[in-house]
């Protein structure tokens, strides 16, 4: 290494200035469309990954080639052409934000519409932001505070470089690279994502948060998130997605892996608001996500999701309750409007003794949308005293939408206690009348009733997210009064 000279400093300052000008013109460094081994290698090289990671990706890619797209979900869409997608796109230079003013105004605009400027967020709870514009992490804040506690919170590509032992040990252990079509694709081509490691006994002092956004037309986003909570630790992780209007369909195939070691607890909250397509059902994001968490002894994983966006959603955040006394929770609100289709739910795999799981799913369908809950509760023969409670409620608005439930329940142990209930109903005319009578217009009344209907799930969200989620529900159902 050569000495750091004044010349170098001058050079650095020059580049820095250049960096700051980036947001007026994000020049993306985009790969040619199509996918083959060379592209996979190139992605890996671009990210300066070690040999084992390249091999891992290639293996995933080879597996992916032998797989076919799943067709069992209750959704209908034009299949994306995987050879017509560019698999890597990153803002050319890597600028670091120092203040919010430098963030893409369009992004801020979307946030403002939802009433949650980054600013407000920061003030509210001291949220550490890992803003992802396209695929490369461009800003990380509060890193220092976290580092003091030994918490690692960075982009996954950084983690591969700096903490290879952790990544190597855990990546693909919960969602194997051959798990399903989209997970295999993600494993082969994932461009970036977040990595989080909470050391033994540490309670993460703030909510960790990532904002994803797709801003490059025709770019697939393949995020990879890996959260590891070591023994006795606690972390609450927030993930929020917003996407501006795009005409053509965009593919989003993310993989999220959570690992909760003995006595650890992970709370993972998502607000998903990708572009759902316009009122005629044109455009919109395809959201094919694999999310899964592994609970060791006495560990707890809690998934909370508010799904309002995407043209097609295919998402089943799951818990593998491997350790004794582990707990899995799933709280979900899925709203579909216009031509949206959502097939979402959870899987609770009870393997250990005295494992508990709770599923609360609220589906709201309006317009011409189709909303499905698909869940699996599986009690293995050794899972003594396993307990599950599931509740799926659907609310229908108008008679052109559909609500479907596909719960699978498989019990192989006599001590299992499983309860499942589902109801479907509409907003009562008397309820609306009651509100109207008191001067609340119908649109507001519906928002009020929907909020009440979803309360059980909204309550599970961290406070600052709950505010956003409520607004989101209102925006999503705008104009669905019929």
């Amino acid at each position, binding site marked *: 290494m050569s000495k750091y000279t004044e010349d170098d400093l001058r050079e650095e300052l020059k580049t820095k200035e250049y960096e700051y000008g980036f947001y007026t013109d994000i020049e993306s460094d985009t790969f040619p469309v199509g996918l083959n081994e060379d592209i996979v290698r190139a992605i890996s090289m671009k990210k300066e990954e070690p040999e084992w990671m390249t091999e891992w990706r290639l293996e995933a890619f080879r597996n992916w080639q032998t797989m076919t797209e799943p067709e*069992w979900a209750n959704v209908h869409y034009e299949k994306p052409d995987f050879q017509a997608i560019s698999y890597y796109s990153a803002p050319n230079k890597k600028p670091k934000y120092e203040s919010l003013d430098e963030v893409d105004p369009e992004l801020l605009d979307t946030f403002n519409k939802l009433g949650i400027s980054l600013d407000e967020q920061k003030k509210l709870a001291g949220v550490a932001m890992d803003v992802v514009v396209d695929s490369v992490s461009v800003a990380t804040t509060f890193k220092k505070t976290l580092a003091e506690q030994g918490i690692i919170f960075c982009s996954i590509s950084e983690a591969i470089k700096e903490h290879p032992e952790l990544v190597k040990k855990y990546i693909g252990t919960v969602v194997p690279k051959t798990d399903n079509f989209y997970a295999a694709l993600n494993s082969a081509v994932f461009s970036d994502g977040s990595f989080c490691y909470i050391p033994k006994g540490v309670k993460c002092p703030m909510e960790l948060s990532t904002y994803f956004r797709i801003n490059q037309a025709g770019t697939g986003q393949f995020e990879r998130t890996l959260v590891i909570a070591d023994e006795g630790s606690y972390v609450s992780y927030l993930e929020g997605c917003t996407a501006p209007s795009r005409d053509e369909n965009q593919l989003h195939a993310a993989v999220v892996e959570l690992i909760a070691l003995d006595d650890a607890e992970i709370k993972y909250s998502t607000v998903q608001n990708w572009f759902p397509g316009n009122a005629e059902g044109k455009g919109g994001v395809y959201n094919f996500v694999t999310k899964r968490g592994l609970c060791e002894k006495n560990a707890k994983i809690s998934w909370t999701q508010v799904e309002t966006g995407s043209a097609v959603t295919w998402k089943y955040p799951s818990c593998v309750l491997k350790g004794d006394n582990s707990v899995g929770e799933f709280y979900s609100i899925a709203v579909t409007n216009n031509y949206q289709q959502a097939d979402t739910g959870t899987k609770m795999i009870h393997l250990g003794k005295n494992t508990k799981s709770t599923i609360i799913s609220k589906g709201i369908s309006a317009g011409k949308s189709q909303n499905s809950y698909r869940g699996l509760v599986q*009690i293995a*023969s050794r899972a003594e005293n396993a307990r599950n409670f599931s509740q799926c409620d*659907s609310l*229908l*608005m*108008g*008679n*052109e*939408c*559909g*609500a*479907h*439930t*596909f*719960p*699978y*329940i*498989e*019990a*192989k*142990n*006599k*001590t*299992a*206690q*499983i*309860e*499942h*209930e*589902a*109801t*479907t*109903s*509409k907003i009562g005319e008397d309820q609306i009348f009651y509100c109207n009578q008191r001067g609340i217009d119908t649109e507001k009344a519906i928002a009020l009733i929907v909020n009440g209907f979803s309360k059980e799930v909204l309550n599970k969200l961290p406070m600052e997210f709950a505010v956003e989620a409520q607004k989101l529900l209102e925006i999503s159902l705008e104009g669905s009064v019929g």
Partner: protein
Amino acid sequence: MDLKDKLVSSFLAFENRVDNDAYVHDVRTDAFKIFEEKGFPTKKDEAWKYTSLNSVLKQDYSLFPKQEDALEYRDVKKYFIHDIDSYKIVFIDGKYSSHLSQTTHDGMDVCLMSAALSKPKYQLVIQNYFNKVATTDSLTSLNTAFSSEGAFIHIPKNKIVEKPIQIVHFSTGNEAATMLQPRNLIVVDENSHVQIIERHQSLTENPVLTNSVTEIFANKRAIVDYYKIQNDNHNASLIDNTFINQKRESHASVHTFSFGGKLTRNNLNFFQNGERIDSTLKGVTIIGDKQHVDHNTLVHHIEPNCESHQDYKGIFDDNATGVFNGKVIVEKEAQKTNAFQANNNILISDKATINTKPQLEIFADDVKCSHGCTIGQLDESAMFYMRSRGIPEKEAKGLLMYAFSNNVLSSVKIPEIKQRITKLIANKLGVNIGFEV
């Protein structure tokens, strides 16, 4: 030669042997083509995810067993609900047994499918109803292709059938293994009322596979009550396909009592083609050993203001496997639908398995639909309560399980059947419940 090949090669011979008119001939040939194309369902089919037919299909079944008549009423009396006066349509190895049966043509037809298919006077009914509600899944198509015998019941307008009708299929085990494919057609016209009891019983331990199809038409304001008693021995397998087409204001109920058999699959399908229809589907399943019972139900709500009630209870011991797959579809025209579905299960042994999948597909907004499903154990405090009052553990368990299944029994309208089922439950649980209903 596997079973499919055997069926394929014997179809032509069968077709040449039965002498039916062109209409039925065409129906059979078309159905056979479907079966040939689809083959037997495998676990890859979503509807058969939890039930494998492999162990059942590997037997070398005789498709057309020899005629057997040497069966005396006193030997098989116990398989009938014998303490009530009833019409009886009895089949032995798939062939009609006139001396055990009691049929009628007096103001209604309680007779044979073979007669209905061949006699010109039934031609209109056959053309209007035969294979009109049955779906085209592979097993139903297979039955349609080989349909020649079964019960034919036609109740004309405004008739209340005083006596219940019993349809009983015996298999004698004269062949090493037998495959039977009975085909029943039941047409109940306006304002009429009929009660039917169906049973399949093998008399030896030789393997039997029954692939039965029953089509029921409940026309305007008709009331049809159907009871299926499934308590066969451990080498008998039953695939029961029942299709019910309901017209406006009709009431139809099917109670299925599954206590026996090696593998039992009940495909029960209700289609509501009219307003203000009421459909009831209830079942009690109590099995042990390596038995497998699969209830696959469908209620298709097509028009407004209809109701459906489903209630299935299951108790599973030893290595038994229970499957419940209940589907309710509410079309967007079917406003004001009330659809309820409940499935409660108790697992008694560590090796028993229950797979349940209650499924709702709803396209209308002004509806009340719910399903509930539980898997659990007997209430410990209730057990303690009874034991502290001197009731032995076994009896206490029996009482609790009887109480568990009582909801289903309470809607059985024929007291003799209720009594019989109570006894069967007591037998199955190995206790003397100690009271008569």
